[in-house]
């Protein structure tokens, strides 16, 4: 496994970052309102539970079918894209992906890259790499544009600027966009963004986009978007570079409609997105528009690690709708930035360990009450709570040779392991359990009034003076 060194460990400072949001009533209210809105939009799209469940089963089956054939499909995709004139590149790490993209830019002496929304480009931190190479990278999705102006990262995979109020955006535009006066009229703000971006689409040397579904049998890249900026990025500049993870592949065109329907309904509560682009080739001789070159960068970045394990492979079923975050009580409390990972929320907790290793992410797996809301809404039925338990096991078990995950055992603690061993010794033995719980019931009054984190917001736990078994014995 060729893994990139990590400069940032999301686990470190996670509790402090969470606390900062939890202690901010304004942010708490703002996230709650936004998530309520998204949940109600999705619910309105699925009034019939039976239809929803059969569609989810179909989505799951399609994703599992395609993952089962992934190596073969990747080869077919490459062959068919190449036949169509699209140049295919393989990147194992973010650094490799950046080198490929910047290499293309440099070959064309590119000065400006205009970007459609792509979480994989966030994953590889392309904007930083481009800046370091002297190439401008401008986000053209409105949310991403806002986040870029604010010098922040997306806090949600679908709605990158969901953490910002319109007043904050108004101030940001007035401060950062030349010749703009303060307005918190949403339509006016959108118009400001459009005016800036329109010119950039024409100036840009490179258009970069993500991919929602790559169809192997036809060599087609499908792109879902709402603002038309995706179409601009992939048609106006002379070079189009698409980047995606290796798992976003389907064999057949007929696999796309059910997944698309699940995606837009689960993500934004839309029947269908405003734009759906299918890109099959660069401009052909005699055609008047379209890029002269189209490239696809296929990124691994830990995905093949997840793929190698039957259970962890389910992580790769994800179609990146974000419904798991919208329904997550933890995400609702702390927002996306607290996670410190490119992908926040439940999906972030299960995919990030493969990208960054468990050493950097081990505490994130514990940040779930396992309530199951994510698994319940996942359109492709990823058993997220089950995977979180598996990641806990991988993180806390004693490091061993030949682990399935990078960083296995990173959270291992001899003390914690011996606590659970002692717990098991007591609870597997009725005699020991009897003695320990009897002592608890008799000396419950000795329980300390401070019980660590439990009593930070709760009264202490005290065993009842009589156990149920004592009460039953007395009753006879």
């Amino acid at each position, binding site marked *: 496994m060729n893994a990139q060194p990590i400069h940032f460990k999301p686990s470190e400072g996670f509790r402090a970052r969470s606390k900062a949001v939890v202690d901010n009533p304004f942010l708490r209210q703002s996230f709650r309102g936004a998530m309520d809105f998204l949940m109600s939009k999705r619910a309105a799209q699925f009034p019939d539970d039976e239809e929803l469940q059969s569609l989810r089963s179909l989505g799951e089956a399609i994703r599992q079918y395609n993952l089962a054939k992934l190596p073969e499909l990747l080869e077919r995709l490459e062959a068919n894209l190449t036949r169509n004139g699209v140049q295919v590149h393989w990147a194992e790490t973010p650094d490799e992906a950046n080198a490929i993209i910047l290499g293309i830019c440099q070959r064309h002496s590119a000065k400006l890259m205009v970007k459609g929304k792509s979480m994989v480009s966030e994953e590889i931190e392309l904007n930083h790499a481009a800046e370091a190479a002297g190439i401008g990278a401008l986000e053209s999705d409105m949310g991403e544009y806002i986040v870029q102006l604010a010098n922040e990262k997306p806090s949600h995979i679908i709605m990158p600027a969901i953490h910002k109020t319109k007043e904050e955006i108004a101030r940001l535009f007035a401060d950062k966009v030349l010749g703009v006066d303060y307005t918190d009229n949403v339509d006016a703000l959108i118009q400001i963004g459009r005016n800036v971006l329109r010119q950039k689409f024409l100036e840009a040397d490179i258009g970069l986009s993500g991919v929602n579904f790559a169809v192997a049998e036809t060599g087609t890249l499908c792109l879902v978007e709402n603002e038309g900026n995706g179409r601009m990025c992939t048609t106006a500049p002379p070079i189009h570079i698409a980047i995606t993870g290796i798992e976003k592949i389907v064999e057949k065109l007929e696999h796309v409609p059910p997944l698309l329907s699940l995606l837009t309904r689960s993500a934004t509560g839309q029947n269908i997105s405003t734009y759906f682009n299918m890109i099959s080739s660069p401009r052909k001789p005699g055609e008047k528009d379209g890029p002269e070159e189209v490239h696809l960068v296929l990124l691994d970045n830990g995905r093949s690690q997840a793929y190698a394990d039957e259970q962890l492979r389910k992580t790769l079923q994800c179609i990146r709708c974000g419904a798991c975050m919208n329904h997550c009580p933890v995400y609702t409390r702390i927002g996306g930035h607290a996670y410190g990972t490119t992908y926040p929320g439940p999906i972030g907790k299960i995919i990030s360990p493969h990208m960054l290793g468990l050493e950097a992410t081990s505490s994130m797996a514990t*940040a779930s009450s396992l309530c199951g809301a994510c698994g319940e809404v996942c359109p492709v039925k990823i058993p997220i709570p089950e995977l979180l338990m598996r990641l806990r096991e991988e993180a806390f078990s004693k490091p061993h040779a030949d682990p399935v995950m990078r960083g296995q055992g990173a959270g291992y603690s001899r003390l914690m392991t011996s606590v659970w061993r002692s717990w098991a010794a007591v609870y*597997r033995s009725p005699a020991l359990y009897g003695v320990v719980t009897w002592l608890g019931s008799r000396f419950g009054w000795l329980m300390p009034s401070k019980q660590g984190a439990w009593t930070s917001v709760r009264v202490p736990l005290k065993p009842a003076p009589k156990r149920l078994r004592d009460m039953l014995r007395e009753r006879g």
Partner: protein
Amino acid sequence: MTQSKTLPPRPADVYFFATCVIDQFYPGAGMDAITLLERQGIRVHFPEEQTCCGQPAYTSGFPDEARKVAAHQLTLFPQDWPVVVPSGSCAGMMKHHYPMLFAADPVRKAQAEKLSVRVYELTQFLVDVLNFKPEDCGSDCTVVLHTSCSARREMGVHLTGRQLIGDLKNVNLAQQDHESECCGFGGTFSIKQPEISGAMVEDKVKALKATGAERVVSADCGCLMNILGHAAWKDAQEGRTTPSLPGEHIASFLLRRTSK
């Protein structure tokens, strides 16, 4: 998950798996559940060797330790009787996770699968098997019901508690905001991520209190420990001497309402 409605005939005997939380912290709820079942003419058997379903270790990432404890519980129910559990969370562990926990042990896996089909959450058993229609003997009151995430999403029994309370003619069931949201307990989650868990239980208690209900009832003592523990802490912080949000297990509530 939808539950199969092809249920066994009314049994004469059941096993009662009390759960370690009820045995040690809420024994009254266990007694009330047993009494409630006995009043329906059921002989209730309490295997004295029972301890814990193993869930705390299982969800914390220690499946080996969970397996040792779960293996012991597998031996406790030799007769083909239903196993009634007054907790959606522990019932979910036994019904849905035991077969997975023993996936690599063919003998125990077979035992776990045989047990799995006999495991019922208490309110599910009362409604779906006993067809229990509680007759209300109490005066007018308003309560609010908190359903655990395991009861709702793993066991799929979020409607049975609601139905039982709905049958009580003098009881008004209030509806809290964000009803289906987790209370923030989550076992070791509450101590590993106390800030997030604390925020969740704070919001849950606020939503429950905002209904104006005089008490909260739940079929899961893990949630009650968390919800009532926070409500009492808040009362102490704010100098209240009477609980602003009393609560109890649904078995205790049902038993009292149906006692003359």
